[in-house]
């Protein structure tokens, strides 16, 4: 029977070939898409499996903690060789086996993060970055390929001048996580780095894998995306294999009449499905190979992957070649189990009962579960409820689709009066499941897209909206954080030099913030920790300077100097940035209530050290020149440890917008990923609609032709076909969009109290309209088939 099946599939005439081609193409589209997604997942896995050399451990010694004197703070653990002031004791470090000194910092160029590692080898066998054979010598630096391209094109005073020395080579791929990464490793002498704050002693390179905060969300997004994609793919392939079902029934009935057993029928059907799927898998692989170069350029996680890593691998190729045909054959067997082909060509399949209102239950349960989930404090247990709630709701929309379709069709039958409306409504009401199935993929895409449109822009806009918006492009640097790490800030002379240079750049405004001299009985120079309960001196700003950044606040008429809670400007969560900050000594981070400072004394600010500097410019290139100048001439020396310890509470120089973007990275990444999946889903769903509509026409060729022969205008038939697809598409898409919007609203109102949902109505409306119109366009495109198939000269029924 296998041979019989092959015979029927491959040499069964033109119609059989067409069916084979359509099925194969449907499978090929699905395989290409799945291979593309799998390739990107593999590349992402490559990123997460990357050696996190940045996580190299600092050498610490046991027992470094000294018992504090009464009233004094305990001396905290210090890496070996690090003196109390933060510099490295090289002799002690070498004795302890330290081989290298590292100093990590984070820089930005036009909003893009730039990772900088200043390094000094202490021994000949100092560990090197993965793929590098040597540590950069003093005066040398190695750059990532992307940074090398920038250095070659961007004026030096905007970027290159920040880096001492000359380029000696490029950082190899093994040490990078993306071809777009901006990274630099700069060689120094040991003496130079030893005195720089936050320099770490290293003995060996970490071999641990990199785990970023976004790892979990990406893994979920890939899994969610694959599931969301599989639905329209399965629908499309299933529709393609159901093409010419009537013809197939005729064939199987004839075979049953002459004695074919059900098992023999199933074998033939399985072979047909297997061959179509096998051919489709091969075509799909070829299709993927044809677009693989473009797939490698897809940016779903915020950065592109290395092209060589974007591949499904042998496992992926073998998987589709084996699993897809096997699944297709299995699906054929399963579907035929319920169908007993009668020798008289009357399939004994129970007429499906109309869908009941119970079909709404999963949707309602999903929404209810989601409400519960967003009210659980953020934790793993919240995630365990949130994700299933989302999946249940999405599936609930698809499950409820036939019921909605049925009711819309009944309504249409009641209010519509024409022949086309009657025909379409009757068919929809008879088998709403089948008609809804063709458009299910689009409704899934509408759901996902609406949910994303509701939640993510709100999250991102909230951080730089309202009163915070004017700060987006303002650079902020923190030269002194007070307390034990106090460096004293920029001296008056340094300040004068820096301000003169910055203010000479056209369009640059500066707001220096000075630290007062009231140290309350303790000095950072004392080399002892401050007493418990000690508070640092107040910080002050000139009212005239502060006008350059109005968001800081305003002075009273006649006032010249104001206290300012400058520390507030360095929160890592822009949503917690409470403005104004002028007039306060400190702000409560949680309540936003400020401690009103006493009136500022009359004093000469130019005699004070500067702890904080704000720099504003409306021109990006000018801002980068300012940033470069500050990096070279007035660098922040506080340091931030290794990237896995970085936070946006970094001292700078970063703009407030860059701070928000670091925090928003997860949201942006998730949005990008999800919209990528939505786009793919729509593409597959569109293909599915095309296949389903064409197949439906082929199956109903005879009744449509008879209708036309008996006088029904072609326009009536076109309206019938159009209404049968358009009605479920529009009605369930509306339901889907409303459900997703409601969930987004619930999420925003519960999780971000006081924040209004920032729904991009214009963009969303246009996008959804384009999607729906495109889907309707596919349906309309099939009308040419209708005309051709139902012409009277073709009305010969074999």
């Amino acid at each position, binding site marked *: 029977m296998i041979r*019989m099946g092959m*015979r*029927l599939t491959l040499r069964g005439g033109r*119609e059989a070939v067409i069916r084979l081609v359509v099925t194969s193409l449907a499978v090929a589209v699905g395989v290409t898409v799945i291979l593309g997604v799998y390739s990107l997942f593999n590349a992402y896995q490559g990123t997460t499996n990357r050696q996190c050399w940045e996580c190299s451990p600092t050498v610490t010694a046991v027992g470094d903690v000294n018992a504090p004197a009464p009233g004094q703070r305990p001396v905290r653990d210090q890496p070996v060789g690090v003196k109390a002031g933060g510099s490295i004791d090289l002799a002690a470090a070498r004795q302890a086996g330290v081989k290298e000194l590292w100093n990590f910092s984070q820089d930005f160029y036009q909003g893009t993060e730039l990772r900088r590692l200043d390094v000094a080898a202490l021994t000949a066998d100092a560990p090197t970055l993965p793929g590098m054979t040597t540590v950069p010598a003093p005066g040398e630096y190695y750059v990532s390929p992307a940074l090398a391209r920038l250095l070659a094109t961007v004026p030096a005073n905007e970027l290159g001048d920040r880096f001492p020395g000359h380029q000696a080579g490029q950082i190899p791929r093994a040490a990078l996580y993306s071809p777009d990464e901006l990274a630099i490793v700069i060689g120094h002498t040991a003496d130079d780095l030893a005195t720089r704050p936050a320099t770490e002693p290293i003995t060996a390179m970490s071999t641990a894998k990199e785990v970023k905060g976004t790892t979990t969300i990406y893994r979920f997004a890939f899994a969610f995306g694959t599931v969301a994609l599989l639905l329209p793919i399965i629908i499309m392939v299933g529709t393609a294999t159901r093409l010419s079902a009537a013809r197939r029934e005729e064939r199987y009935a004839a075979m049953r009449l*002459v*004695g074919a057993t059900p098992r023999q029928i199933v074998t033939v059907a399985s072979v047909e499905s297997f061959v179509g799927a096998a051919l489709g898998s091969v075509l799909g692989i070829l299709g993927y190979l044809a677009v693989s170069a473009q797939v490698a350029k897809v940016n779903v996680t915020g950065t592109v992957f290395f092209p060589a890593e974007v591949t499904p691998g042998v496992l992926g190729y073998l998987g589709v070649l084996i699993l897809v045909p096997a699944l297709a054959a299995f699906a054929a067997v399963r579907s035929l189990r319920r169908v007993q082909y009668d*020798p*008289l*060509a009357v399939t004994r399949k129970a007429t499906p009962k109309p869908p009941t209102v119970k079909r709404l239950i999963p949707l309602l349960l999903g929404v209810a579960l989601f409400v519960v989930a967003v009210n659980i404090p953020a934790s793993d247990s919240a995630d365990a409820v949130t994700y299933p709630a989302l999946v249940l709701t999405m599936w609930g929309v698809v499950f409820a689709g036939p019921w909605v379709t049925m009711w819309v069709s009944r309504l249409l039958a009641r209010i519509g009066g024409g022949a086309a409306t009657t025909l379409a409504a009757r068919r929809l009401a008879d088998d709403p499941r089948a008609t809804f199935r063709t458009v299910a993929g689009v409704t899934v895409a509408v759901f996902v897209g609406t949910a994303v449109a509701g939640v993510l822009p709100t999250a991102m806009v909230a951080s730089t909206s309202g009163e915070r918006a004017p700060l987006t492009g303002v650079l902020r640097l923190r030269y002194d954080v007070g307390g034990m790490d106090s460096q004293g800030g920029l001296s008056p002379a340094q300040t004068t030099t820096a301000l003169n240079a910055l203010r000479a750049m056209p369009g640059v405004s500066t707001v220096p913030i000075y630290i007062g001299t009231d140290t309350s009985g303790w000095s950072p120079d004392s080399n002892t920790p401050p007493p418990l309960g000690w508070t640092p001196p107040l910080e002050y700003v000139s009212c005239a300077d502060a006008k350059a950044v109005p968001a800081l606040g305003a002075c009273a008429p006649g006032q010249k100097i104001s206290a300012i809670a400058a520390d507030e400007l360095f929160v890592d969560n822009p949503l917690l940035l409470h403005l104004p900050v002028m007039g306060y000594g400190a702000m409560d981070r949680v309540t936003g209530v400020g401690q009103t400072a006493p009136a500022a004394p009359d004093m000469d600010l130019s005699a004070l050290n500067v702890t904080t500097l704000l720099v504003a410019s409306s021109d990006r290139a000018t801002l980068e020149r300012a940033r470069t100048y500050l990096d070279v001439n007035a660098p922040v020396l506080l340091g931030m440890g290794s990237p896995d310890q970085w936070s946006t509470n970094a001292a700078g120089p970063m703009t407030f917008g860059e701070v928000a973007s670091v925090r928003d990275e997860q949201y942006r990444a998730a949005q990008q990923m999800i919209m990528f999946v939505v786009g793919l889903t729509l593409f597959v769903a569109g293909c599915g609609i095309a296949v389903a509509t064409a197949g439906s026409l082929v199956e109903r060729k005879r009744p449509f032709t008879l209708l036309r022969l008996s006088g029904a205008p072609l326009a009536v038939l076109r309206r019938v076909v159009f209404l049968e697809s358009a009605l479920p598409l529009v009605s369930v898409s509306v339901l889907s969009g409303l459900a997703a919007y409601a969930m987004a609203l619930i999420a925003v109102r519960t999780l971000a109290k006081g924040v209004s949902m920032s729904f991009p109505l214009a963009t969303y409306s246009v996008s959804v309209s384009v999607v729906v119109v495109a889907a309707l366009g596919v349906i309309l495109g099939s009308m040419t088939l209708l005309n051709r198939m139902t012409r009277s000269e073709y009305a010969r029924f074999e």
Partner: protein
Amino acid sequence: MSEYILEARDVHRAFGQTQALRGASVAVQRGEILAVMGPSGSGKSTLLHCLAGIYAPNEGEVWFDGARVDTLGETKRTELRRDAFGFVFQFGQLVPELTALDNVALPLLLAKKPRRQAYAQAAPWLERLGLEEHGDHRSGELSGGQAQRVALARALVHKPRVLFADEPTGALDTLTGEAVMNLLVNAAREEGTTVVLVTHDARVAAYADREIVVRDGRALTTPSSAVA
């Protein structure tokens, strides 16, 4: 051995609320050609289907060559259709994707005969029925008469004991119908095949050795035959 190769005894069959057969009884002798006549909706096709093991009656018995057919499971009835029975229906019911030769060889292939042997056995039938030039044509490329002759060849290729023909000329013009009936009857007589022929056309019924009339689900005999 019973003289009757095929018997229906007080057979009842309903489709939903429609009672198609109400105690129909008929006996068919070996080698005879029996015409089953009756008006449309009388149950004659249903009687044929029960005799052929396509449907199981709700009540009554169906016997074939001394064995009960109505109590057989679907698998056994399928085997019966494949090995012992042949079918010619009004519209041929050929497999559209197969050629004429493939369709004729199909019952042999289903019976797991070696491919070469199956086609060797099928090919002469095309020649016998005047279809030797149409062996590689599909059913869509054949005229109605040609398709019926292919169906006839398929029905007889495996030398069935009984041939069931339901309105075999219903879709054909008079001349073509006569040609098909001549071929059917001659081939059946040559092979010694019993024929049960359902028709509403008296000219077709004239080919039979005996006629019965089905009316309101009951089989009525003609004076020239004796029925149990």
